């Protein structure tokens, strides 16, 4: 019976869109998605589809003992119930049949410039170009499979640079939304640009998929048009701090970080977790990106007699800082954010890289046929290896392509297909399950540099303890601290 209904839905969807649904497209629509489509079809501009919203019982798998103000029952807890889109966009008509291509936007740091938002000089182009390559490969593969299947026209990647001055990312998104008429956008990396971009996406009612910005606050904005397909700094910090404090019992931890938004917001969960676990960060020093000489900061950190040092910033700075530490006789274990996991760091740090550990949003060592196929295709297409930004860009773009194929050419329906997806997306970076806040709640890892290469470890492999994660939201849990199971 269920299968019969499923087939009816597919037939109805075919008629509703006015386009014949080819067999290749039918293969992309699982029964749950077919049900979403059924409830979206024929909806008036004034109606909101009757679709079940995700309801999480805990925000971001946060352990009770690192929740903010854990001894107080908060008045309100946000992000547990999925945001709805209640506007009229679902009833917007599909574009004319003479459309030549299906445009999807890309925004990222591609060209070198001086960006105030990113700390005074551009430094993320290498990451942005890799992200673009991953996204481009996904588009090219989709076109090789027939492009936009309902109309047999190609997907077209509209590429923009977000590294300009004066908040140019906002201007670029406006242009993509109103002049280029893209159907969805993938980007960006720098969180200042990301926040600018998502505010525009909200007004213009356009999906913004992020695969490169790990700032937790990116998703903590309650915008129903924004989603992320990469484990964020909150998830990585939880794992890192569980390792440092719960497993290794480090008590005197110091932070050295970039004096930009990536550094400032990246360490927030590290600092909060350390304090809530009873061992506040002893010293936090910031530096200008690319300063080259970090002796001022390191001298003070050395005097603080630290058990461990955490760095949050770019790979080159990370390597230079590590080398300067070692030269100064600072032999503490060195931990860092995921950007340190790069050839640039390995080359500059040399032998000092041995034993360095970093949070990491996925496990590149995982055995997966899709991952291997992607890597081979990437190597063939671009003549280089697919690193993390390329891999996540590929996953994020494939998610968008899938949603456009299934939903048709309607921005609100594209958003719905993603927002109401019932199963994790099987990406080359691993499973991507969305939380109620439409953030990636997939597993994150620790990377350790061992004998000339990075090795990736799960929580279980390193036997890292974790705090109790309550199964009830904080408001209904009661007044008493949630440190104990209830």
């Amino acid at each position, binding site marked *: 019976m269920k299968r019969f209904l499923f087939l009816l839905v597919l037939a109805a969807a075919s008629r509703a869109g006015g386009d014949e649904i080819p067999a290749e497209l039918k293969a992309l629509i699982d029964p749950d998605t077919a049900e979403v489509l059924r409830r979206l079809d024929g909806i008036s501009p004034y109606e909101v589809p009757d679709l079940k919203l995700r309801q999480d019982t805990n925000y971001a798998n946060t352990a009770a003992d690192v929740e903010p*103000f854990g001894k107080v029952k908060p008045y309100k*807890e*946000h992000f547990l119930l999925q945001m709805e889109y209640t*506007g009229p966009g679902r009833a917007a008509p599909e574009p004319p049949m003479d459309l030549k291509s299906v445009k999807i936007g890309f925004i990222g740091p591609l060209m070198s410039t001086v960006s105030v938002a990113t700390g005074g000089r551009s430094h993320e182009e290498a990451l942005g170009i890799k992200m673009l390559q991953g996204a481009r490969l996904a588009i090219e593969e989709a076109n090789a499979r027939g492009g936009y299947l309902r109309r047999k026209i190609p997907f077209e990647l509209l590429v923009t640079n977000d590294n300009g001055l004066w*908040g140019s990312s*906002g201007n670029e998104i406006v242009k993509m939304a109103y002049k280029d008429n893209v159907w969805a956008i993938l980007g960006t990396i720098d969180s200042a640009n990301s926040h600018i971009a998502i505010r525009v996406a909200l007004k213009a009612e356009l999906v913004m998929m992020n695969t490169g910005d790990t700032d937790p*606050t990116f998703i903590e*904005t309650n915008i129903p048009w924004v989603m992320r397909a990469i484990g964020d700094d909150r998830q990585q910090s939880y794992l890192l701090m569980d390792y440092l404090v719960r497993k290794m019992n480090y008590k005197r931890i110091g932070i050295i970080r970039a004096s930009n938004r990536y550094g400032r917001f990246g360490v927030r969960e590290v600092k909060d977790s350390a304090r809530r676990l009873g061992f506040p960060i002893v010293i936090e020093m910031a530096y200008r990106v690319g300063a080259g000489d970090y002796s001022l900061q390191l001298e003070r950190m050395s005097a603080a007699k630290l058990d461990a040092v955490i760095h949050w910033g770019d790979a080159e700075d990370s390597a230079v800082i590590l080398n300067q530490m070692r030269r100064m006789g600072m032999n503490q274990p060195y931990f860092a954010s995921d950007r340190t996991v790069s050839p640039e760091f390995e080359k500059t740090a040399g032998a000092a890289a041995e034993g360095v550990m970093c949070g990491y949003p996925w496990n590149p060592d995982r055995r997966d046929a899709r991952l291997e196929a992607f890597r081979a295709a990437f190597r063939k297409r671009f003549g280089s290896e697919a690193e993390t930004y390329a891999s996540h860009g590929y996953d994020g773009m494939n998610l968008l392509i899938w949603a456009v194929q299934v939903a048709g050419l309607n921005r609100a329906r594209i958003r719905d297909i993603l927002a109401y997806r019932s199963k994790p997306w099987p990406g080359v970076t691993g499973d991507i399950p969305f939380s109620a806040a439409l953030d990636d709640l997939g597993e994150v890892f620790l990377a350790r540099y061992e004998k000339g290469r990075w090795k990736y470890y799960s929580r279980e492999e390193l036997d890292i303890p974790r705090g109790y994660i309550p199964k009830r939201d904080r408001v209904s849990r009661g007044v008493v601290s949630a440190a104990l199971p209830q």
Partner: protein
Amino acid sequence: MLRITALVAMAAGLAAAEAPRKLPYVYTKWKHFTVAEGLPNDHIFAVKADGSRVWVGTENGLALIDSRTGKVRSWTEKDGLPWRVVTGIDIDPKTGDVWLALFGGGLARFSGGRFDHWHQLNSGLVNDVVYGVAVENDNVWAATTAGASRYNLRTGEWTIFTEKNAPMEEIWNYGVHYGDGKVHLAVWGSGVLEYDVATGRWKDYLDPDGEMEIDLYRDDGIIHVITTAAHYVEKTLWVSSYFGVCRYDGRNWRGFFNQDSGLPSDFNNNLKARSANEAWFATDKGVGAVVDVATNTWVAYTRDPKGKSGKAVVTRDKEVLETVEMETGIPHNYIIALDIQGSDVWVGTSKGLGWGVGEGYYPGLKERPPVVARERGDRP
């Protein structure tokens, strides 16, 4: 369960109908303006009343409604409007000039039938993505996505406010309002900033708990640093956000959420304050108007998704006092902009503009019998 709850509430309303109670004014007469009536686009981003004239900013053009005659005029890019998306409007009370915030197009002045255009390449406007505009004496303020700009009309001087010269933790300005000698900026990620025109000093209002995922106490300050609008009226600051709304009378803060008031949703795009006691909020699930702060009395206006009819629900805390059903409700439940025109209200939605005619309007509460709700077959 929802239906049962509603029927109980209606029954309560019926029972209460026998005795007058202290109740607010309810707008029951709504008129709609859409493309069919001459608007250039149905997606309304801004509305500003100026006497009997009502300016409307849409996703594809500017419109002017004469509320005495109902006549509509419109301007699009082909008529000289510098950019199609108009996200904010303010009127210079001295000159009558109309200032327009253009979403991705900078700032424009409409005067004497001519559009003048300022953008980040020909002026001191810090960014072309302008969310809001406010005229303060001889200055025009623009809330942009990369800071605020102030343009002095007498000297032609531009001043840019960012993290370098104002307490902006983030520079993503969202709304700007001038009233009672103070300019208020609603800044995404930086709460509300207050600029005292007389002293040139800044003051910031931030979420005291400093956390994104919770609001620790309801009445301890701004409920979240991501704010969407701030209005200062009768020495009272009203603030909207995507997490609820709040009010500050100079001494005490008060937060309002969907869970404890008649606010239809915590997702608030905008607000318009009528007084220290009355403010209207643009939510994604209808209009919420707090009409008596002391008693937490609200009126929530929604449209029936199945037809043109609508409903106004009067609540005190979470108790439904009356449900007024109307043949014509607000145009759509996704609300983006609001303005007050004397006794009337204007509601900009993502599918048309609504004009609530306030015949017999009175502020606050008044003894009157509750309106008896008709029992209907559909869900309230």
